């Protein structure tokens, strides 16, 4: 029986972004306006170039420890961010650089934290996985898989407690989706009608374990079913689809309907972390997604087709983004390490 079941699920389990367009349940994707497409292009490109630079700097020994790159998944945070307003909060796991840049955190501060320097967002004490910005509503940056899910639920609780209509965006991966505390959170969020949007970034691999090898059911948008939480599968490689789903989810929460789940079908091009040999998937698999479904390339082609930008104009955007990233890298390389006295600060208020 188990075998039959797993066979029946195989097409779904093995699904890559390339396979999924035909059975999307979401409504047809609304086009973005010119300014939105250009903003999405710029924001996604910033994440891409930033992460490429972070990868290089890791290779040079300037960044230590763990470093999880977001390359390939850019459309998810950029699309979701378009649906937010002042006072909404964002929390995620350890693959967090993209989320911080999308929240409007300064690339210099993020990169300087990666290099462990004093002007990093956490004064060099947090590193890649632990960064925060109270000002931008970004609550981390959490290194323990799925720990951010109860925390994000608590952010939603605080919003409701204060009688605000702000929502909490809680991002986690397909790997974290199997942790018990996720379901403890789902239960409380639904029970208390909390404005929590759970965004499962399904990039198909929990470190080296594919979704079908780790999950008894592979449609993660149904993971709230036992608690009566609605869910939707979204093409996480298409920023328009993400934005549309995000707006719908945000409206649902702001209107007091309780939590909602968005499963973003996405893909990471790089390894789980910098030290990942990536033996669990083929080069061809990665190449296929890259060449056929790249989130940034999709926007680029639309901009050109609609004549909203010329190749030259896009190159200028690219050059500008590279400048921002290079400045961040230079800043993060030259910024001094934290003063030794910082060892004993910020433990207690």
């Amino acid at each position, binding site marked *: 029986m188990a075998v039959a079941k797993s066979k029946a699920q195989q097409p779904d389990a093995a699904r890559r972004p390339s396979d999924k367009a035909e059975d999307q349940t979401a409504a047809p994707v609304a086009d973005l306006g010119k300014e939105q497409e250009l903003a999405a292009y710029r924001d996604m490109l910033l994440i891409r170039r930033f992460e490429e630079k972070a990868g290089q700097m890791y290779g040079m020994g300037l960044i230590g420890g763990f470093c999880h790159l977001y390359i390939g998944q850019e459309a998810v945070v950029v699309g979701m961010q378009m649906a937010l307003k002042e006072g909404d909060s964002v929390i995620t796991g350890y693959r967090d650089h993209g989320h911080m840049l999308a929240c409007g955190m300064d690339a210099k501060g993020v990169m300087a934290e990666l290099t462990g320097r004093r002007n990093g*967002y956490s004064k060099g004490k947090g590193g890649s996985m632990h960064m925060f910005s109270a000002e931008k509503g970004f609550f981390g940056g959490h290194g323990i898989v799925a*720990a951010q*899910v*109860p*925390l994000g639920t*608590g952010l939603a609780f605080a919003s409701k*407690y204060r009688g605000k209509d702000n929502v909490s965006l809680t991002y986690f991966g397909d790997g974290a989706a199997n942790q018990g*505390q996720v379901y403890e*959170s789902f239960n409380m969020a639904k029970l208390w009608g909390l404005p929590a949007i759970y965004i499962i970034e399904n990039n198909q691999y929990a470190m080296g374990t594919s979704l079908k090898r780790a999950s008894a059911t592979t449609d993660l948008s149904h993971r709230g079913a036992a608690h009566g939480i609605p869910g939707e599968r979204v093409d996480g490689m298409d920023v328009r689809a993400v934005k549309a789903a995000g707006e719908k989810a945000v409206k649902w929460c702001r209107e007091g309907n309780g939590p909602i789940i968005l499963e973003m079908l996405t893909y990471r091009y790089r390894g789980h972390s910098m030290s990942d040999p990536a033996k669990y998937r083929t080069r061809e698999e990665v190449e296929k997604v890259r060449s056929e479904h790249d989130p940034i390339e999709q926007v680029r082609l639309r901009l050109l087709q609609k004549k909203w930008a010329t190749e030259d104009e896009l190159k200028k955007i690219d050059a500008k983004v590279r400048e921002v990233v290079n400045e961040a890298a230079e800043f993060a390389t030259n910024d001094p390490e934290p003063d030794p006295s910082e060892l004993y600060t910020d433990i207690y*208020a």
Partner: protein
Amino acid sequence: MPIQVLMPALSPTMEKGNLAKWLKKEGDKVKSGDVIAEIETDKATMEVEAVDEGTLGKILVPEGTADVAVNTPIATILSEGEDASAVNEPAKEASKPAQQQKPAESAPPAEPKKAPSAAANPPQPQVQPEPDVPEGTEMVTMTMREALRDAMAEEMRRDPSVFVMGEEVAEYQGAYKVTQGLLQEFGSHRVVDTPITEHGFAGLGVGAALAGLKPIVEFMTFNFAMQAMDQIINSAAKTRYMSGGQIGSSIVFRGPNGAAARVAAQHSQDFSAWYSHIPGLKVIAPYTASDAKGLLKAAIRDPNPVIFLENEILYGQSFPVPKLDDFVLPIGKARIARAGHDVTIVSFSQGMSYALKAAEELAKEGIEAEVIDLRTLRPMDTDTIIASVKKTGRIVTVEEGWPQSGIGAEIAARVVEHAFDYLDAPVTRVSGRDVPMPYAANLEKLALPTVADVVEAAKAVCYR
């Protein structure tokens, strides 16, 4: 021979209760399962069921009688043919175990989900007057339970961002009745019953704290907080540091900690040393109701995560508490509970009851012990300990927790580091035995420290 109805125990820690009401009169027929009386403790009202059939012969304890000791005969049941005159000296049978009655199963449940209740009213502990209180302050007697409740209520009145959450804290009025009345005053918005989901609601509480609220998270007991350990340590304790001081959590995790009575290994554990190990946490473990009130108010106001370790056995004990509008004690300050010059005894929480009784015993033998109640375990008030050791040259630590890497071990290290030259004897630890807590009554006694252990240790370091 008439059958005696004995005062039942509602929980392993109950020693006496009030006979609230008789539901049957003398001469009434009773059969097994009939509810014959209601008894009360400070945390619950329970029905007493008859286990035998017959006629209610004589009521030995009238309704309204307070503090009836467990196993006292409260009535007799006559079998067919017997009459009430057959029972004149019921007291002779009083030492028999109370097997004839059991609390009615239909009664409102007084047992929390995973642990039994405490309803004990043992002899009142002797405590020195509170040194942190202005002279002439009126003192009122209240239980630890009431003091904790008042502290929360006062802080909730003062600050709308303070709320309480946990299992059974609202409608049930608290598994140990510590949150009694809070729902009625503050409503379900601020007194939140959670599902049984420690990992989840601890994390949710931390998230709410990151957003600026001030949650009081009650664990029904700290045994269940092990499920939430990751959120307490990785999320609550470390976030301020990891964010470079940008974001922290002002949150109190509180509940009973340590050995209860007859609940065995999984429900009887002292976590004092565990939490006190963690930078980023403050850890408080009060002994008196006064300290509990003043320190819980301080903990709620503190911008850091605070672990507030209560003790089930102490909940029902009464202490003098200063009658002040806003009584807040400093976190991190020990209290000299008894002054002395021959030997220093350091303890905290329930360990203080052994320490203080031992000091009385020692005084009879001419040894004047200085007893220090740590009150806060982290930050630990090393100065007060060291000052005392410099005076006495001898120190005994007392705790219910395990010896290895315990609070006593930490104190020993600090004394050796800071007052080695003043020591006239080895630092000596009295602790719980290095075993999981057994269930059997005799073994359980053996596993916990006793007054005699403390007396013996103190005499040993005094070479007496």
